[in-house]
Structure formats: C-alpha cells, structure tokens
C-alpha cells in the first residue's frame, strides 16, 4: 500500500473533504482583501529592489518579499475557495449567473501572482477580490447584536478602507 502512495508524486490525488464544517455562519472578506493588498505591496517592494549589484541585504529582502507574496497568494486562494464552496449557496449562483466564473478567475489570478511579479496581475487580483467582497456584502445577513464591532458593521474597519 505504501508503494501505491508513492504514486502521489506522479499523479497528485485530489483531497476529498469528509468532515462537515460546523455551520458557524462566521464568514468575512477582510482577510481576503488584506492578503490581496499585501501582494500588491510586495510586488512594489520587489520592483524597487536593484536588479544588478545586489547587496546581501537586497537579496535577503528579495527572498523575504517573495516568501510573503507566496504566502498571501495562498491565503487568497484559501479564502476564495472557502467563500465559493461554503458560503455561497445555489440561490446566489442563480442570482449572479457568472459568480462561478468570477471565483474561478480570482483563484487563477491568485495562482498567477505566485508565478509572476507583476503589478498589473496584483491589481487585477485586488479588483477581482473587491468585486467578490461586494457581492458577499449584498448576501451576508446583518450580524447579531452580540457580535457588535465585527468587520461588517464597523465603519472604521480596515475592510471598509480596502473596499474604497
């Protein structure tokens, strides 16, 4: 059996989720937007680094920025897939017929931003995330009073600033 599992390196298996997520109803898009914004900032820093005659510090910063960009692109992917698979329901996909396509494109853009250092692609990802966050805001039920101060009802929340 262990030999069969070595085939995973050749044909990567898909992960099937078995555990039903507890339907806590706690979803938000702030994490997604901050991750997309971080990618833009990392690209800006990377593009500002010298191309030739890099010092040790430059090389250190380059590696760190690439690492952070990669990490936040993965966060974007994870947040997008969670919203896509867990939050939005069939009635939402009927109301917004191109919602599947929007998520598909956004997830691919997150992957593109791992492979590239491009302000255009980073901005495109941010725009896609903002659009999906806007749809999310139209769907999400107002928070209960015991959740006062959450992202969606705090006018000074970082999310509100990222959406503007």
């Amino acid at each position, binding site marked *: *059996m262990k030999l*069969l*599992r070595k085939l*995973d390196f050749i044909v990567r*298996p*898909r*992960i*099937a*989720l*078995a*555990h*039903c*997520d*507890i*339907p806590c109803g706690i979803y938000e898009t702030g994490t997604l937007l901050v991750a997309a914004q971080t990618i833009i900032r990392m690209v800006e820093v990377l593009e500002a680094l010298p191309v030739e005659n890099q010092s040790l510090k430059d090389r250190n910063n380059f590696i760190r920025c690439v690492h952070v960009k990669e990490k936040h692109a993965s966060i974007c992917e994870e947040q997008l*897939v969670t919203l*896509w*698979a867990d939050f939005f329901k069939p009635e939402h*996909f009927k109301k917004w017929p191109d919602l*599947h396509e929007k998520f*598909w494109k956004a997830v691919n853009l997150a992957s593109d931003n791992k492979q590239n250092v491009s302000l255009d692609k980073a901005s495109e990802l941010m725009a896609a995330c903002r659009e999906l966050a806007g749809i999310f805001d139209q769907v999400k039920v107002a928070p209960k009073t015991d959740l006062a101060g959450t992202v969606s009802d705090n006018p000074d929340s970082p999310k509100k600033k990222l959406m503007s």
Partner: protein
Amino acid sequence: MLPSFKPGDHVVTFAWSKIKAGDVVVFAGDAKLKRVLPVYIKRVLAIEDKSLHVIGDNKNESAKMPLVPAKNVLGRVIWKY
C-alpha cells in the same frame, strides 16, 4: 467519515457503475466545475429521483447536507488504501 475513512486515507473511485444506498461517493458542489471545485466524500443514505441524500459516517460531527444531484458525483468509492 470516521471510522470508515481516516485523514490521509486514499480512495479509488469508479464513475461508471450504478450508485445505490450505502455506497460511499465523491462529489462536488457543481456539475460543470466538478474537476476544479473542492470535493466531498459521504455515504449515500437514499436516492430520490436524480438526487442523493448523503450523510457522514461520523454521526457525532456530521451536519445535515443538502441533496446532491447525481450529475455532481465524480464516482463511487471502490477501494481504499
């Protein structure tokens, strides 16, 4: 899906046999995007028209799942390793 399936278990599915109650199936949230969306593994409780009632084996943690259209199913589990 404990105790039938543990995290890390590998399964092989077969897409061309008739599904019946008691089978374990792998399915996606949407038929058109079933090759790219996250997939789920559950046991078939009953079949109603062209939809499946599915449930997890781990009754302590399984929440109720909506009806799954048969076209969303990628296959029936035939082997675990």
